[in-house]
């Protein structure tokens, strides 16, 4: 029976006509542990893996000779070829990072001479602690995750030992603090962040622990980007201006430390950016693509200070496409006695959110056009208009006179916002004035 609580083992096994290896792994702890046994053969190029969760006091037994003879498949459906007779094996406690409650025993039987001997194991210890995020760049009041890593003395690969670190701190808490694998920004500046915990020490037939500590630099920057949680599809200059995002220190000042540059990217590769650097950087987004779902696009804004580092801020936005209109039912203002004079107020809605454009949208001045299938003879129509400060627009329909009206015609009117068709109306001009029928779209 091997010593308790090894995290890693390396030992040899043999299973041929003269030998057989029987291996057991037990849980000596007080909580369940996930044991993984990996048998390496063909010089380590191939492996056979078995995993099992062991309750406290539970053991798992493996007879390698039987596994090979019966061609029992491992967790990945793989079997050990019959001609394989030896190799090494490794045990990992998947439930515990550094030291766990698993213990191991192995019996290699010499079938010819009847001798039995215990196997030889080796504890794969860890070689120091290194921080994973170097440097940590975090915003004031922001948080950045940190990790701790080590190389194993057996395979040399990096092992995440973040969970083994029991203490996290920084040198200057006025700049940043740390706890539970997180570094928190407090004020603009730089300081070191550290982590400490028990790591295992390698050794034959013995595995022990020692205190390991790692450290790395951390920088705190002050960078906040504000803007609407949406952008509009289109290339009109008014739309692009509406798609503005403003970088600051969060208090109306410039991002800090000063002298950095702002960059931006999008989860949609077709989105493009116009960036004005300076004291109050502005990022304007142009997108040709409508969102499929609300807030399905991520814009990432980055502030980079040469020699210090960079921080980024992601924003979920919806790319809104002008889609349809609603309108009021205005009263008749014709006071000459015959006909109608009505001013319709239109509200613009977008897809996919089916939300109205409003005063916060910043689309004032965006062009609105009105076209007809045939030039109206009864109604002179205006040139191009634009969205007002509330994001809507008005359209008058008038045919009003002081004697009975005689003009009679039907025309199809198409209303577009920034070139996107958002409504078709049938206008009927006649003795009673002008009336419209909404031909959609209505949603």
């Amino acid at each position, binding site marked *: 029976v091997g010593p308790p609580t090894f995290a890693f083992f390396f030992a040899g096994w043999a299973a041929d006509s003269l030998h057989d290896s029987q291996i057991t792994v037990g849980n000596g702890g007080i909580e369940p542990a996930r044991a993984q046994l990996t048998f390496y053969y063909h010089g380590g190029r191939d492996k056979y893996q078995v995993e099992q969760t062991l309750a406290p006091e539970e053991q798992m037994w493996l007879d390698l000779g039987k596994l090979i003879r019966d061609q029992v498949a491992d967790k990945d459906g793989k079997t050990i070829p019959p001609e394989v007779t030896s190799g090494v094996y490794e045990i990992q406690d998947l439930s515990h990072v550094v030291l766990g409650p698993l213990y191991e025993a192995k019996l290699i039987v010499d079938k010819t001479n009847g001798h039995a001997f215990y196997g030889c194991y080796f504890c794969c210890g860890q070689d120091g602690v290194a921080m994973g995020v170097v440097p940590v760049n975090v915003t004031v009041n922001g948080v950045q995750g940190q990790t701790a890593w080590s190389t194993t003395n057996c395979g040399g690969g990096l092992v995440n030992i973040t969970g083994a670190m029991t203490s996290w701190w920084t040198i200057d808490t006025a700049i940043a603090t740390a706890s539970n694998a997180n570094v928190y920004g407090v004020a603009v500046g730089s300081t070191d962040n550290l982590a400490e915990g028990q790591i295992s020490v390698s050794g034959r037939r013995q595995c022990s622990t020692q205190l390991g500590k790692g450290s790395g630099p951390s920088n705190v920057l002050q960078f906040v980007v504000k803007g609407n949680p949406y952008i509009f599809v289109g290339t009109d200059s008014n739309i692009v201006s509406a798609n503005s995002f403003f970088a600051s220190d969060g208090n109306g000042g410039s991002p800090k430390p000063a002298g950095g540059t702002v960059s931006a990217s999008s989860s949609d590769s077709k989105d493009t950016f116009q960036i004005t650097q300076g004291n109050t950087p502005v990022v304007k987004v142009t997108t040709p693509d409508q969102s499929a779902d609300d807030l399905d696009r991520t814009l990432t804004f980055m502030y980079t200070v040469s020699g210090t580092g960079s921080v980024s801020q992601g924003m979920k936005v919806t790319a809104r496409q002008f889609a349809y209109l609603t309108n009021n039912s205005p009263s008749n*203002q014709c*006071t*000459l006695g*015959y*006909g109608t*004079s009505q*001013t319709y107020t239109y509200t613009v809605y977008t897809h996919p959110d089916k939300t109205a454009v409003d005063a916060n949208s910043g689309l004032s001045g965006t062009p609105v056009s*009105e076209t007809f299938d045939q030039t*109206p*003879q*009864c*109604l*002179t*129509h*205006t*040139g*191009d*208009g634009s969205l007002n400060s509330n994001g809507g*627009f*008005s*359209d*008058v*329909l*008038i*045919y*009003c*006179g*002081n*004697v009975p*009206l*005689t*003009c*009679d015609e039907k025309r199809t*009117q198409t209303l577009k916002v920034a070139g996107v068709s958002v409504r078709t109306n049938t*206008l009927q*001009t006649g003795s009673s004035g*002008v009336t419209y029928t909404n031909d959609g779209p209505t949603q």
Partner: protein
Amino acid sequence: MRTLKGIASLILLSLAPALNAQQHATAPTVTGPPDYKLAEFEVKDSSFVEAVSQLSRQAIEGLHLGLEEVLREKMSDPPLQGPHFSLSLHKSTVREIVDSLCSYDSRYTWSLDGKTINIYPKTATADDAYLLNRRLEQITVTAIPDPGQGLTFLDRQLPPPREQLGYAGAGGDFSYIAPWTQTFHDLTVRQFINRLSEHMGSHTSWVFYGSKQERLFTFLKGGFH
């Protein structure tokens, strides 16, 4: 001398209609939209009205245009056919452009009234019975929300005979910033319409169109199509 003075007066009196018809030629030089120089003004195979429409839509601060079309007989008649022409002017003033347009369609002439450039049929120039030439000693509009409502006051205050009046249009809002009350003295209907239109804003247009049986005004902020 007295004889010479009398002859001179007779000559001036006999020239009066001609001077009226060519009012633009004698209008005082003003610095404003009529003298605004456009870098480029080009029309291709356009009618006179289409060309004026294009001019009306130029982004010229302070441009006020009033166009009175040659009216067809009945509303159901097809649009009157006038000459079509192509024109390309460089660095010309609005005044020069309107002159040029009128030279392509001899049915029209123009004059300046305050801030407004009025373009109208030559045949209407000396026709006192023509609606836009009729005189108003006084007219008051009260709390009108838009220039169209001013026609209701014209209908009530225009001396007999009563005229057919109407207005029509499709497009942008043409309302005033606030209801307007104003009294005007000794002016023509055309000047009254000019004042109603100018009050809409810094760039306005009005169009008088339709048929002889049914004449319609349209008032617009900006230009027209």
